């Protein structure tokens, strides 16, 4: 009897505890997407300004060289993969394609410009890749060395890509 009374007395608190647990669990059940969309609708309604993100950085050499390295890499891989897939879908005789482009007789600056577009990313990415491998081996992190190697890579890739564009001319095949 006493046990029954005690259990009856205790049960409301127990129920309240479980209801609190249930409500807390349902609050935690919202996922990140719901929380973020709620955040954005609320801020959009209040017309709040965005905090500045990209424009607050003053560009420096390390950032620019790293960005160029990434951009040249992505562009080259997209070009290679895209060309490969297009050639797979539309098989053309490559020699005929080249004859067609040769017959267009494009102006020389355009040809040289196109060759630069091919040569510069490859040489820049290769030489900056050497810089990256040096970092992976542990050399060249000091700020002076970093800046010197960065300028050296830019200058050398300009020189080498100019040599590739103007200095190498295979005979018409």
């Amino acid at each position, binding site marked *: 009897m006493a046990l029954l009374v005690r259990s009856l007395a205790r049960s409301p608190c127990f129920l309240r505890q479980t209801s609190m647990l249930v409500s807390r669990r349902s609050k935690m059940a919202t996922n*990140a997407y719901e929380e973020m969309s709620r955040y*954005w609708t609320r801020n959009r309604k209040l017309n709040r300004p965005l905090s*500045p993100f990209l424009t607050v950085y003053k560009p420096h050499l390390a950032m620019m060289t790293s960005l160029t390295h990434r951009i040249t*890499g*992505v562009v080259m891989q997209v070009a290679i*993969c895209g060309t490969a897939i297009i050639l797979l879908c539309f*098989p053309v005789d490559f020699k005929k394609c*080249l004859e067609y482009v*040769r017959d267009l007789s494009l102006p020389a600056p355009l040809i040289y410009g196109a060759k630069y577009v091919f040569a510069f990313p490859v040489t820049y990415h290769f030489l900056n890749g050497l810089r990256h491998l040096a970092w992976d081996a542990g050399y060249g992190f000091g700020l002076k060395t970093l800046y010197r190697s960065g300028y050296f890579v830019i200058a050398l890739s300009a020189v080498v890509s100019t040599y590739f564009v103007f200095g190498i001319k295979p005979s018409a*095949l």
Partner: protein
Amino acid sequence: MATVMLLRACSRGSRNLLLQMRALPQCQSQAVISKPFTASPALATIEYFRARRGPFTPEEKRGKNHIMTASTHWKVERIVAVAMVGIMPAALFIQGSTMDHLLSTFVYLHGFWGIDGVLKDYMLKFVPWICKLWYLIAIVGFAGLVNFNYNDVGVCKAIQMIWSL
């Protein structure tokens, strides 16, 4: 930054803390121009990129069914990169079918891991399946390259032909 201010206040007294805190908002509002966010709710595509759907918990980020540890994978990437340092200049002097296959394999593999890294940096948190899609596209691309090396002139010859224009 808060801890630095607190330490400064401890050495100079709490009045200076208040003075420092009042001085800061002024210099911030001068230098920074913030863009007002007035995008209309109609831009549903932008809405898609607001939310991160990508891996959140450490278990999700660790991933499943890895063939090797991340450090070993990193080593393999560097080995391929070092091999390319030898292959790329050699391709200027030695051409042929072997060089075609070597060049296309190493360059393509290096590029695949590169794009994989870029996608994981920027896209994975919004589109969790993007790396699988790139894997499929890359396989098709490699098939195209191998086909080009087999049934067409091959990459070395193709570059020579383009350069002869």
